[in-house]
């Protein structure tokens, strides 16, 4: 599509228009998905509590979220007089924006990705580490006790779980050999015999469980929702918010939950690949497999929310620092050890191999592997002169 626009509108402007349209093609369905997922969340939660859930607005209550959205939009925005006005209004916008921009690098199907950058996973990590600011700024600028407590909790919680998420991602990257999310998905093709997905690998499955639980903590979902523990903190950082600024927090929160579900699917369960590497399954477009996986994970998220009681704060910290951190550290060690023993150690990437043309360069960069280099004759092998 970008080429077509560039052909008709000129290079720069065509690129701009095409990208704008692509962004809208992701952001608008995402908003719709968030509305429906809030409805689904309430329905699942209700079903597990033997209630009916929303069932009045529209058929089966399907329009409930839209009715709520309309109601919230028509309310008055109240800014507390002691609040720090500018920051108070920036915080929800920040939360909402950060929930959206993470989707830029998520591949929805083969070649269906807005920006196929080679540091995709780092970008996701950067965005998720930024998302703590929305909560912290909201809590501080409200100038009220409970939001401030909530902001402190949020900051500590997100920073703690970021660490174990980082180690989990390292294990995935080691196995995939790339930071690019499309590359990570491709690496999962028939990973275990004919099954697609790192999660089916017994060595990586524990990491996928840790990642799932850390994702719950990162998005402050149910067992870890201490930032808005209503029995202690009223409504946490959202206490002073009303109307649209409140709705933006709400949308941002569920947008983040969807992003985390998408990441779970992408990193461990094959993204847009069908679960089994079997030709007829590829007739179904990849985007359907991806959405099916997201929905499955969202069901897990609401399942946990409906069944698991909230953690105490010290238990949350204990889980993050004393259990997840050592386990994921050990697992990075195990995975890298396994990779060292089994995988070929020398690079097969054409870019690197083409760049190394002289003996001196080979000694300098790849001292222990000279046999795989097409540009050098085999007789030239010498003892490595590393460092």
């Amino acid at each position, binding site marked *: 599509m970008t080429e077509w626009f560039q052909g008709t509108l000129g290079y*720069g402007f065509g690129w701009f228009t095409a990208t704008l349209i692509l962004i809208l093609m992701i952001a608008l369905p995402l908003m719709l998905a968030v509305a429906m997922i809030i409805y689904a969340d309430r329905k699942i939660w209700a079903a597990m509590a033997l209630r009916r859930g929303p069932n009045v607005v529209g058929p089966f209550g399907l329009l409930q979220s839209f009715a709520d959205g309309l109601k919230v939009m028509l309310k008055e925005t109240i800014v507390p007089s002691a609040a*720090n006005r500018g*920051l108070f209004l920036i915080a929800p916008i920040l939360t909402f924006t950060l929930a959206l921009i993470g989707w830029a690098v998520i591949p929805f199907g083969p070649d269906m990705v807005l920006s196929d*950058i*080679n*540091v995709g996973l*780092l*970008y996701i*990590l*950067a965005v998720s*580490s*930024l998302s*703590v*600011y929305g909560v*912290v*700024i909201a809590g*501080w600028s409200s100038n009220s006790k409970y939001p*401030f407590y909530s*902001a*402190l909790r949020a*900051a*500590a919680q997100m*920073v703690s779980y*970021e660490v174990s998420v980082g180690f989990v991602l390292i294990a995935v990257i080691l196995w995939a050999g790339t*930071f690019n999310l499309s590359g990570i998905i491709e690496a999962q093709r028939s990973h275990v015999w004919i099954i697609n997905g790192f999660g089916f690998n017994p060595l990586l499955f524990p990491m996928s469980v840790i990642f799932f639980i850390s994702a719950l903590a990162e998005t402050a979902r149910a067992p870890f929702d201490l930032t808005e523990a209503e029995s202690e903190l009223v409504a946490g950082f959202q206490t002073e918010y009303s109307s649209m600024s409140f709705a933006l927090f709400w949308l941002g929160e569920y947008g983040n939950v969807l992003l985390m579900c998408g990441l779970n699917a992408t990193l461990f369960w094959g993204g847009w690949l069908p679960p089994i590497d079997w030709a007829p399954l590829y007739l179904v477009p990849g985007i359907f497999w991806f959405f099916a996986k997201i929905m499955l994970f969202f069901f897990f998220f609401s399942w946990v929310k409906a069944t698991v009681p909230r953690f105490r704060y*010290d*238990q949350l910290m*204990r889980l993050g620092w004393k259990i997840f951190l050592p386990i994921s550290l050990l697992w990075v060690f195990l995975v890298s050890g396994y990779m060292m023993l089994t995988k070929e150690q020398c*690079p097969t*990437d054409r*870019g*690197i191999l*083409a*760049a190394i043309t002289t003996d001196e360069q080979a000694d*300098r*960069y*790849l*001292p222990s592997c000279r046999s795989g280099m097409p540009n050098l004759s085999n007789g030239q092998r010498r003892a490595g002169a*590393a*460092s």
Partner: protein
Amino acid sequence: MIQALAFYLFATIVIASGVMTIASRNPVHSVLWLILAFFNAAGLMLILGAEFIAMLLVIVYVGAVAVLFLFVVMMLDVDFAQLRAGFAKYLPFGTLLALVLLAEIVFAIAAWNAGGIAVGARAAPVDPNVPNIQALGTVLYTRYLYIFEAAGLVLLVAMIGAIVLTHRKRSDLRPQNVSLQNQRRPKDAVRVVTDQPVGEGVRL
């Protein structure tokens, strides 16, 4: 064109937010301006084609270091009026420092314009087609492996030092022992009382 536009945008915001970091009255605002400066510096790195460094800048500085800054500053009860009271006292020394820095910058730019000093061939000429994570990795884990590991050890020492400094045993706490709780079985905790006389409490 778009690069120049992006460069001037990022550079202007970096400088402006740097100025605001110093000028803003509220320390929390200062930290937030500092974060904006970090973020736009990452943008400048992206223009240079150093996407790995840019992402690391955001993850490490914005995502971790600045959160701690913000955390500390939010908790502190800084009275800025009191801090500013010493402004006149430190003015001469501050001016001197500023002049020294200015002179150094001028010298650096002059030296740069004069052609710089030839430092010989660059240590690691890298093919521009190789993604910079790979390029960095091939250099870091072969040529500079020992230096890299030494840096890691320095960080480890710093971490252990921080833990030793802050760790203390408190005797007035009763910490939860989760494994002990999980080992508890009904027969350890439940006692059936049959011949309980009426009008007396259960003896525990």
